[in-house]
């Protein structure tokens, strides 16, 4: 094994178990890569070389002592900065949390640590996960490794870019309306949003509590399954956590068989109005699934057309409530209003929230406060909740006819940084295909399905399954990945341009 950073997490785990590699070597190789390319990519907000190497050394010692270790022990990982990590700065991409050091770990971080995985650092993101490009990060955008002038998707663009730029074999993302799947699509990587309740939300800085879900960001379907299995499962610290075993995702990824499976194409999200190259790759993926023995069926989900509107009421409403805790009293930024002697707590609060929140966060807090305010509640938040019911019913009806649904993950390939920054509605339209899954709580995965002809940039295929049947994502994703890579002769990432390394 000569090239550590281009190796999958599954293969790294095997090499570590066989003692062909040490965790210190693997971790150091990724830290070196971060040092060499992250100046240009800016996937990380914080790198913890010392902590990661200490974990790696401890794992190497335990392995040398003959201990039986978890499958991913010693494989390093990057964690999105919206996830609390004890002792490591956690900002959620916001100035209001600059310098905050969580006094506790998110449950999923506790599991990564228990599995002996060195944490390389915290990845960049749109502020409080509001955005589709990472341009709303208070610390500057992340750049897409395929073209540094383009967006890496969002909100989890740091995690997708870290994996795409070989700065980490694995990363944690969170997905409220597509923040794992859309970044995966535009960076040629894999990302899963598990069933709502499948992964504990304890220790995630909440954006919209009824929509948020953490999941894996990787370069292969099997790697995503391995990480999904590790972080998933019941957690008594999260009252919405599903009290049932994690679906058999790893077995499904390895099996990767679609013979006889019914695959649904959603009339309303079948690529009309999407970029030509994205549509072309989608059609080819459908043909390939049919060749592999799947039955392609068209289904209609008429309420999906109102999904984006319902989402941009439900999310801001929940966010305005969740972000009320940033009040400058117990943690985070505190600034006084200018020119006021002995300001009141309320004045300090209002001045701090103006100084600490970026434009997109302010837009959504105000929108949500408005939607929940007396006199408007029924027309906005109440009506959006009814649309949500109709979308869940559309999914239920569709899954009576098919085993999985597929769509293009995002309407376009990666767009240029700055292109949509001052047009919030244009930015919101990126999420049109991914949002329905969050509203209904069903799981989804995005896998790379080729490059668009017009710009040579990656496109993604989204697979959706019924709630708690996450294994189907991996079953179909694994089959399609294998067939696509057989056609290409190698994984898609081998076609990515080489990043210049600086030292």
């Amino acid at each position, binding site marked *: 094994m000569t090239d550590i950073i281009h190796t999958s997490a599954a293969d790294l785990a095997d090499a570590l178990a066989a003692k062909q590699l040490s965790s210190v070597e693997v971790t150091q190789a990724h830290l070196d890569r971060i040092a060499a390319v992250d100046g240009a990519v800016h996937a990380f907000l914080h790198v913890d070389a010392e902590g990661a190497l200490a974990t790696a050394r401890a794992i190497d010692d335990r392995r040398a002592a003959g201990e039986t270790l978890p499958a991913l022990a010693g494989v390093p990982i990057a964690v999105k900065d919206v996830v609390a990590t004890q002792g490591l700065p956690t900002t959620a991409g916001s100035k209001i949390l600059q310098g905050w050091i969580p006094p506790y770990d998110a449950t999923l971080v506790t599991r990564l640590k228990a599995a002996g995985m060195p944490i390389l650092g915290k990845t960049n993101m749109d502020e409080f996960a509001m955005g589709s490009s990472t341009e709303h990060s208070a610390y500057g955008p992340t750049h897409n490794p395929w073209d540094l002038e383009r967006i890496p998707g969002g909100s989890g663009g740091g995690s997708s870019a870290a994996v795409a730029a070989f700065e980490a074999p694995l990363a944690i993302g969170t997905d409220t309306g597509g923040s794992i799947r859309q970044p995966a699509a535009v960076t040629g990587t894999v990302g899963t949003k598990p069933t709502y309740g499948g992964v504990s939300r304890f220790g995630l800085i909440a954006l919209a509590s*009824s929509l948020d879900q953490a999941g894996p960001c990787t370069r292969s379907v099997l790697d995503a399954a391995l990480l999904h299995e590790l972080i998933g499962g019941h957690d008594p610290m999260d009252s919405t956590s599903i009290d049932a075993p994690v679906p058999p995702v790893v077995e499904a990824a390895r099996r990767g068989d679609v013979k006889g499976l019914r695959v649904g194409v959603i009339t309303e999200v079948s690529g009309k109005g999407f970029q030509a190259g994205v549509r072309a790759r989608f059609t080819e993926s459908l043909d390939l699934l049919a060749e592999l023995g799947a039955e392609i069926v068209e289904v209609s989900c008429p309420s999906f057309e109102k999904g984006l509107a*319902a989402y941009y009421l439900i999310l801001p409403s929940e966010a305005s409530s969740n972000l009320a805790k940033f009040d400058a009293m117990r943690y985070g930024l505190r600034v006084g209003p200018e020119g006021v002697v002995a300001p009141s707590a309320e004045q300090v609060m209002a001045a701090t929230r103006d100084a600490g929140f970026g434009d997109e966060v302010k837009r959504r*807090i105000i929108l949500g406060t408005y939607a929940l305010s007396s006199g408007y509640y029924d027309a906005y938040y109440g009506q959006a909740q009814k649309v949500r*019911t109709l979308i869940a019913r559309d999914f239920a009806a569709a899954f009576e006819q098919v085993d999985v649904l597929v769509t293009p993950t995002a309407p376009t390939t990666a767009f240029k940084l700055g292109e949509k920054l001052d047009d919030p*509605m244009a930015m919101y339209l990126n999420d049109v295909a991914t949002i329905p899954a969050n509203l209904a709580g069903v799981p989804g995965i995005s896998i790379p399905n080729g490059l668009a002809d017009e710009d040579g940039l990656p496109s993604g295929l989204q697979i959706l399954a019924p709630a708690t049947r996450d294994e189907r994502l991996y079953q179909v994703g694994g089959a399609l990945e294998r067939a696509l890579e057989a056609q290409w002769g190698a994984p898609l990432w081998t076609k990515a341009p080489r990043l210049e390394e600086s030292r």
Partner: protein
Amino acid sequence: MSSLSRDEVAHVAMLARIQLSDEELDKLAGQLDQIVGYVGQVNEIAADDVPPMSHPLPLVNVTRPDEVRPSLTQEQALANAPASDLGRFEVPRILDED
């Protein structure tokens, strides 16, 4: 409906405790009006008989045993405070002086 004036944005920002400058108000008001116009289309769906959905999971009354368990120490809880004194959060005045 589906229109949001600059004054309304200022009022809602006050409710949300965000002190916006005049320039911010000018910028946000136009954008928010456009967004409110778009999201207002949820009213195009006739849904009088449709129940609202607040949550994807049909969970009710999830409780935990009422037992003492480890929590943050006072020192940990105060470690990130903007100001603290005598083991407590120190906050600006909450009452007007007159």
